[in-house]
């Protein structure tokens, strides 16, 4: 590790603005990184822009532009099946990612920054297990287990989908949170404990705020993962429980119309507004 003189470190810590290094450039930029990042963002949004544009297509192709029209939005507004599927997807993703992130946070706290304890590796392997098999396998296994339960109990609600998605989401939340934790050392927590803070207080006022970006990253990731989980949903769903991806899967062999573009655009924009609101609210956390 690099050693530094205390005075220099103190001086730089006191300054609020990004410091200019000895060669006069901002230390926070690395050569080429900003260019690659912006290029990536543009490329990321290029297909999305096409998607949004074609949702206004006069014709019914996703490729041949025939003029501007709101017909697909009208069709989507009238299509109950697709609306219900979309809302169901969002609802499912929200619940699964919330519960999954909470469970993943607790597990990450338990298994990171620690000495080796009995079962630590096993827990790590278990938590990452859903990543390791192709979805079809988990899907069929869940079908069999849940079907037996459904037959035995006669209960057919969304709970099966919720637990299936939650389990699937956990590793996607766990890994970013764990990555975050691994970059935090224990010193702040030890300092808090030295000042007689209880374990809970330490967690709430020291660890959690520091972990927060990792938790956010984990939750966002598991949210989008759940939104796109099609195979597991296909096999676990019961009557009337189509989600947007399973609805679209069915369309694949027939025809895909810009109606799904319209729905996707609506979801994109609602998501944008929702999350923007969320961040406005959490601004106080800083």
């Amino acid at each position, binding site marked *: 590790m690099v050693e530094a003189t205390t005075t220099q470190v103190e001086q730089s810590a006191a300054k609020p603005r990004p410091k200019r290094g000895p060669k006069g450039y901002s230390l926070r930029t*690395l*050569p*080429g990184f900003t260019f690659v*990042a912006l290029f990536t963002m543009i490329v990321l949004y290029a*297909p999305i822009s096409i998607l949004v544009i074609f949702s206004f297509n006069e014709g019914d192709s996703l490729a041949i532009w025939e003029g501007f029209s709101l017909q697909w939005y009208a069709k989507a507004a009238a299509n109950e099946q697709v609306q219900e599927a979309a809302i169901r997807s969002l609802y499912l993703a929200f619940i699964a990612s919330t519960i999954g992130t909470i469970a993943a946070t607790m597990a990450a706290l338990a298994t990171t920054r620690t000495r080796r304890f009995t079962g630590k590796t096993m827990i790590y392997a278990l938590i990452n297990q859903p990543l390791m*098999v192709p979805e079809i396998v988990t899907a069929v296994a869940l079908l069999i287990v849940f079907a037996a339960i459904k037959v035995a109990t006669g209960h057919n609600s969304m709970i099966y989908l919720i637990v299936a998605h939650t*389990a699937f989401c956990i590793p*996607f939340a766990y890994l970013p949170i764990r990555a975050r934790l691994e970059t935090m050392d224990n010193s702040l927590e030890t300092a808090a404990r030295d000042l007689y803070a209880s374990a809970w207080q330490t967690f709430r006022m020291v660890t959690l705020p520091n972990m927060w970006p990792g938790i956010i990253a984990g939750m966002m990731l598991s949210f989008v993962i759940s939104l*796109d989980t099609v195979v597991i949903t296909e096999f676990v769903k019961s009557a009337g429980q189509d989600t947007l991806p399973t609805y679209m899967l069915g369309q694949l062999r027939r025809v895909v119309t810009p109606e799904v573009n319209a729905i996707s655009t609506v979801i994109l924009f609602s998501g944008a507004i929702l999350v923007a609101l969320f961040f406005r609210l959490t601004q106080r956390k800083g």
Partner: protein
Amino acid sequence: MADTHAYRSGELEQEAELADTRQRWLLSLPAVVIIMLFAAGPLLVMVVYSFLTPGDFGNVKWEFSLDGWKNTLVQRDIFDDTLMWADAHLSIFWRSFSLSVITTVLTLIFGLPTAWFIATQPPGRREIWLFLVTVPFWSNLLVRTIAIQELIRNEGVINLVLLKIGIITEPIQMMFTDFAIAFGMTYVYLPLMVLPIYAAIEKLDFRLVEAAHDLYASRMAAFWQVILPLIKPGIIAGSILVFIPSLGAYVTPRVLGGGKNLMFGNLIELQFGAGRNWPLGAALSLMLMAAVMVALIYYVRVTSREKADG
């Protein structure tokens, strides 16, 4: 007296350790229970099925058979019944494996700068950028993939723009090529690389970087020797999140690459579908899972030892 003292404090330490372990287990319990019940547990069904006989029309017959496992590696030639290596399975696996490696590398190349850029934004703007990276993924995979087609096909946006500017005179064939697959996969798996790395960079103590500069390190030297080791956990997490799930990917490769060749995910799906060979499907996926599990555990052991030593 000294002996008893040492003995007792050793005991106390042990008790404290046990209490700590118990506490950690309790914390992990929700995640462990959920996954045991709804992901790993049901897989036991697959383990059982891998030892049964395929049913006539899908599903299984409750008769013990090792064929499922045997057929993953060794099969009889369809026409002359000679025993031979299941080279189809191996070549298909190799294809998926290579694609996963390429995808991981590409997402790293493009994802690391992106994560860096986002994490070095002022707080407040940072979250907006982060969420801008994930918003495209709120749209459906299929719709996104079709939109990507629109970008890269011969009459698509990229070719049209390049033709107009005059850089090229003929459209570049991008659809149905390996480039298209790599592009599509990188696109799909990008957030899985960006978000964990972001989480690691965001915490970076830039004073250490400044200290390096004060000692006349160039920016890139500082990057390789100071920054990279510090954000390694993020890179590892991202790589795991991209590599492992992409082993089973097949929709994107098929839509953009043409689908003439099976990926490992389709091979398994085929067994549960028209192939009507659930035991083989179960055996193939359990083998995959075992291989990945072993690699992961090996990795964890190695890094734990590193931490203990360093």
